[in-house]
């Protein structure tokens, strides 16, 4: 590849577009992690072979692109320029798609997405309700770009913002633009990005660093991963612009080793950018020099904390340290350092291309732009969604997410990952931005969104998240290391029916100590799941503690499985599936579960035909009554 300068960049873009003008049709196969798991690479290869076989290569292009977001429906294939959206495409479908849709311009009905609410088939990607409510300014290009080909990025105005910045703007102007845009850091705390840059710029030092925080560690969150995998150059361009504004000469991308595709794509992208002169000495022929290294983390959750990330890059254990000094004053190797999250960096080229004014019109008064959420849990449309700040939870969950699975009732949504909190059903109309979420006791975090239905026990959820933070605590400070362990102990005790009256008070006291006493953000936010579930679902805690009952019928020690003699048809299904032979009975006779043998695995409930639904779970008083009955029956015998 040639090294280019700013004028050549424009020409190059024109050349790329020109070279592709004959290829009117483009089959794009989503190459995101979700679709990878479905085997999208083989499908893309099959498309290539088929196109070749049918001698369409001159006019039809096949590309493996970044993540389209709608992971629930993968592997996804979109045929451009019409935007025909085929979902759950199989290898056997490939030949048909090429013959029918490409050659004969016919839509294949069975590959279309059906709107579960209206039952209507939808042809075009942008008409799919999942996408309709989204505002995909960051994520949208993923579907058009082959992340391994820098030309795709350039064709979509890639590095144009960089050229503009390097030749038409001073560092101060760049910072002013970012400040004016109102962009807040997407990593969790939501600090104003422009202000953060300015602080770092104003510290005088011979060497400065910038870091891209790609140590995404929340369970169920993968938007940073998808950006690095799907559109790595947008992150790189953002970083170069940031480096120019701050005056940094070196940058790091701290990405976890568990993201092999992200590591591969970003490394390749850096190589290509370097070859073309977007990185290295005198970028695009300007006086500015800068380069980026990829640093692979070992996957500790705490490494996402700024100071421990720097410790990790320096080769030490990822321990956070007390601030001040802030990274902007004393960061990596003691030099001023600016750290931003992947998504924040990806916003930068956009802001500079389209202007702060355009950007600040998106979102709410204090939270500008869009936010990518990873929508997971008991939701119909699992995937990555990009929405403008200020959208309501209801819109995300019901309109984009397609509502709760299996027609169940929505109970709560955990935002912000394990450090966030649970928001209950009566707050569904909450418009989300940084501040409203914090006010609700949760947080934006990096954008995890875990939807829970009526079958979720909130005490159990709190215990799950606390177990996670407890294990991921670095072990440095006492409140976090021992405090979270004690929280888990108490929560486990409650879910096992050994809760004590004072436990709620104890949880609250301890949570307060951990929040106020911990060294870093991990500990300071770790009790949030406990505090929010206590705030919104205290009755569930009380039920566990006082009545020894689990209203959601989840906590094994508090429930029993029972076969309703009035409903059981004696089909032997549950009996055969019971792993511990706890069920007795004959064909056409009522089956009975031996409570002493039952391990509460729920296999019987799963296999009992819905028409019959004889297997039921009981907790609390009802459970006691059933147990008593069983005992008295046994005594009679």
């Amino acid at each position: 590849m040639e090294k280019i300068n700013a004028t050549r960049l424009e020409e190059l873009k024109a050349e790329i577009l020109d070279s592709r003008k004959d290829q009117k049709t483009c089959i794009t196969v989503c190459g995101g992690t979700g679709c990878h798991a479905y085997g999208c690479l083989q499908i893309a290869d099959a498309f290539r072979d088929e196109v070749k076989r049918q001698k369409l290569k001159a006019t039809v292009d096949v590309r493996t692109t970044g993540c389209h977001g709608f992971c629930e429906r993968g592997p996804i294939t979109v045929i451009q320029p019409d935007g025909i959206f085929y979902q759950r495409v199989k290898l056997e479908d490939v030949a048909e798609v090429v013959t029918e849709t490409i050659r004969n311009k016919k839509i294949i009905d069975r590959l279309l997405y059906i709107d579960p609410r209206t039952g209507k088939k939808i042809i075009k990607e942008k008409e799919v309700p999942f996408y309709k409510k989204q505002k995909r300014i960051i994520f949208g290009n993923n579907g058009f770009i082959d992340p391994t080909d820098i030309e795709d990025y350039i064709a979509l105005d890639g590095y144009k913002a960089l050229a503009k910045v390097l030749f038409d703007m001073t560092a101060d102007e760049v910072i002013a633009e970012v400040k004016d845009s109102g962009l807040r850091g997407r990593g969790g705390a939501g600090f104003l990005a422009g202000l953060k840059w300015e602080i770092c710029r104003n510290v005088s030092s011979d060497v400065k660093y910038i870091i891209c925080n790609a140590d995404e560690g929340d369970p169920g969150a993968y938007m940073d991963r998808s950006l690095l995998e799907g559109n790595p150059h947008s992150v790189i361009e953002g970083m170069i612009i940031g480096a120019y504004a701050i005056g940094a000469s070196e940058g790091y991308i701290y990405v976890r080793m568990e993201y092999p595709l992200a590591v591969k794509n970003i490394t390749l992208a850096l190589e290509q950018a370097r070859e073309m002169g977007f990185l290295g000495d005198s970028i695009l022929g300007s006086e500015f020099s800068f380069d980026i290294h990829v640093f692979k983390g070992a996957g500790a959750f705490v490494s996402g904390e700024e100071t421990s990330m720097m410790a990790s890059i320096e080769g030490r254990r990822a321990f956070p340290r007390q601030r001040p000094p802030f990274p902007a004053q004393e960061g990596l190797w003691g030099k001023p350092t600016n750290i931003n999250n992947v998504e924040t960096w990806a916003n930068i080229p956009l802001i500079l291309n389209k202007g702060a004014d355009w950007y600040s019109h998106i979102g709410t008064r204090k939270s500008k732009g869009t936010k990518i959420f990873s929508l997971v849990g008991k939701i119909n449309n699992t995937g990555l969604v990009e929405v403008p700040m200020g959208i309501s939870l209801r819109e995300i969950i019901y309109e984009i997410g397609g509502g709760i699975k299996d027609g169940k009732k929505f109970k709560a949504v955990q935002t912000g990952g394990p450090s966030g909190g649970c928001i209950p059903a009566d707050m569904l109309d909450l418009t989300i931005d940084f501040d409203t979420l914090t006010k609700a006791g949760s947080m934006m975090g990096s954008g995890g969104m875990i939807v829970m239905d009526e079958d979720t026990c909130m005490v159990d959820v709190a215990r799950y998240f606390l177990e996670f933070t407890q294990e991921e605590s670095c072990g440095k400070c006492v409140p976090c290391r021992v405090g979270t362990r004690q929280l888990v102990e108490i929560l486990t005790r409650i879910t096992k029916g050994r809760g004590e009256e004072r436990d709620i008070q104890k949880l609250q006291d301890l949570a307060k100590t951990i929040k106020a006493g911990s060294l870093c953000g991990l500990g300071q936010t770790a009790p949030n799941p406990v505090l929010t579930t206590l705030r919104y679902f205290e009755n569930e805690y009380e039920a566990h503690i006082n009545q020894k009952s689990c209203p959601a019928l989840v906590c094994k020690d508090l429930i029993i499985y029972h076969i309703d003699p009035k409903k059981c048809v004696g089909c032997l299904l549950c009996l055969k599936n019971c792993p511990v032979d706890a069920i007795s009975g004959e064909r056409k006779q009522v089956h009975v579960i031996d409570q002493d043998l039952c391990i509460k695995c729920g296999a019987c409930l799963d296999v009992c035909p819905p028409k019959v639904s004889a297997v039921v779970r009981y907790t609390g008083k009802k459970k006691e009554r059933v147990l008593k009955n069983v005992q008295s029956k046994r005594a009679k015998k």
Partner: protein
Amino acid sequence: MKVIIDGKKLEADGHKTILETARESDIFIPSLCDHPQLLPFGGCRLCIVEIKGRKGLVPSCSTYPEEGMEVKTDSANLRRMRKQILGLILSEHPDACLICSEKENCDEYKSTIRKVGEVTGCVLCPNNGRCELQDVVEAIQIDKIDFPSVYRDYEVRRDDPFFDRNYNLCILCGRCVRVCHEIRGASTVTFVFRGSHAVVGTVLDRPLQEVGCQFCGACVDVCPTGALTERAIKYEPLPDDQAKTICPLCSMGCELDVMLNKGRILSTRPSKEGAVNLGQACVKGRFAIKDTVYSSQRILKPMIRRRKELEEVSWDEALDFVAQRLKSYKGKEIGLIQSPQISCEGNFLVERFAREVVKSQNVDFSTGISPLEAFYETAHKDKVKPRFNFKREEISEADVILLAGLNLAVSHPILWLEVLKAVRKGTKLIMVSPDEPLGGRHTTVCLRVKPGSEASLFNYLSKRLLKDEQADGRVLEGQEFFTTDLAKLTAAKVVESTGIDENTLNYAARLLSEGKSCFIFGMGLIQDSRIEQNLAALWNLALLNKGRIIPLGLETNSRGLFEIKRKSGQKTKPFDQIVQEVKGGQIKALYLFGPVPGNKKLKTEFLVVQDSYLNKMSERADAVFPAATFAESDGMFVNVEGRMQSFHRVIEPLGDAKPDWWIVSQLALRWGKKDFLYKKSSDILRELKKAIPAFSKVSTSAQKGGLPRFIQESDKEKEKFMPLKYQERTELTSKTYPFLLGSEYNLDYYRSLILSDEIKGFEIIRNPRWFKLNPKDAKRLDLEDGDEVEVVSPVGKIKGIIRNTDSVPEGMVRSCLFWIEEPSSSPLLPVKIKRGK
């Protein structure tokens, strides 16, 4: 700047944390992880305070004051928080005794000492009574713990020498990890695992002795709980008294605090106020002192030989006997061997005794291989006057340090800390040695020369510097011939002789040219016949580079003895000649104060041994005088820097042992020499000051505050190049003797006591019977760790066991102390290795 802490207006500076500032004004803030020698950590969170205008609580240990800051160290909220945090700590620490309401009078009911392996409460903990956690519990007044206790059930690690590690007691303050990393540069322990499994451990959970631990004990000293405890004091009572002494086990002269109980030494700790060691010690000062003093090999009574047997007698009898026998010899028939491990006063008196009483010139000390002596001799011949004094701090002020011919981290661990301090702030470190020295990873470049090629390496570096030098017009005496001489030295030749590639050599030269340099050398440069060549080359290099050159002696008082001999102006015979005359029969009576290399072969008519420990010579002696150790006497040592340090009696002498000076003085009285009558050692010091002006600045109260006292020397070094003194390189090894045996120089003995003979831990970490061999050589010879071997040289043979290590280059065998056992004019010997039985 002004800050307000708890309403008190205080003066603060920006370099001290809020915690330090508060403590200086006697405002108490509880804390467990903070330590004055270590960087702020902020882990225990007990030192949290409130700062007006700042959100949340801040740890005072890692927050620095700002102008006008208002700090509150106590409030209901802080008390509640501290109680809860301490409760969390205690939930993982055996706490029954800590919160027991009867803890005050527990001892009355306790009928026995601890006899359990697992600690479940303070009464069973070796740290009971000196535990910082106990103090904090007392201060925070916690009487109930709100959390279920968790016993982490770690196996107590007893597989290493000197101390046990019981991580069930650990509160993860990280002090051990930090001191090992920040101060000792060893990083042998670290945090392992995450979350509630986090614990202090070693790489792959290996024993400390396998991960490079030098057992300096710094971790034990900083541990606030009983997690790390010195094994020797585990079952001992608490000290009832404390005293200071100077460690005699190397030439640093570290100040130690001696813990005493009923007049008996319990253990020693590095003194926090020690000007030399700044609160640090090494394995010897920390763990070897007690056993050295109370060794089973101590000589406790004067003995004389009657009817072929040594018999215990009174002092008078012994002194009379020796005086009477010595009087029967002429002066030149009497030899006296001094010891660099006894005080200046003792050595001064021995010298006077030789001169004035028995009228002999045969007085010298045994370790003829002293870098000080060798450097002085070499320089003296060329009328160059080097300086010997330096201050520890000067080392860390250098921009580049070159260490040659020594394994500083082992031989002078405390000086090594100063080098590390320098490296941490960016100083470049060059090491020159055939071996890979300990701490090699801290070096910028390690020049592993072939043994004996050091001189050509130094000369080549000089040549490069001359070439690259920006002419500053400074031409020194001797520069012309130096320059012409160097012209003959080609890179190819040097690469061949040193075995180091040209790029690395040039890189080292470039490092040297970048700033203030300091050259430190030790025994490695003076262990073959090319001593003068090596030292001249190094001197010239240092001179050319305008750097400091520091020779490091090994023995406690080697500098003191060196000064006494150098400045007394008396003509005495050198050691080698004395040995020759003993062998030749000219010297018939020998009076020994210290060990003599190859002592087995010295035979005389009459032999007096004055020592603290039984040894091979004392077995054959006609009279044996029990000398008191440093702990039982007063005196002065001059350390490697030239610092004069007095030490004082800590315990009563064991048995009938007496200070060396007392014995010599009493003996002299037998000749009627009234001027040898001294009441105390300070009387001798006064005389020493008069006789040798270099000592004039010392006063007996030198240690009681005031400025440090150094040996007086003329400040002006004579700046002049020495001739290169090319000496032909003779190949020492041959087909019959293919290996080169070299010594490792650690002062692992005190007078005649070899530490590993008395202290098991020393045998584990530095066994003098080890022959260290490169694994490749070992494989060729089919030898494994622990195999018994016989190492045979043209002059004799020694037995030992094989120890594989990469630090030794191929073709070499390293052993420590072998020269004590075996006579040799050159400590580099060609040898062959045979499998032993």
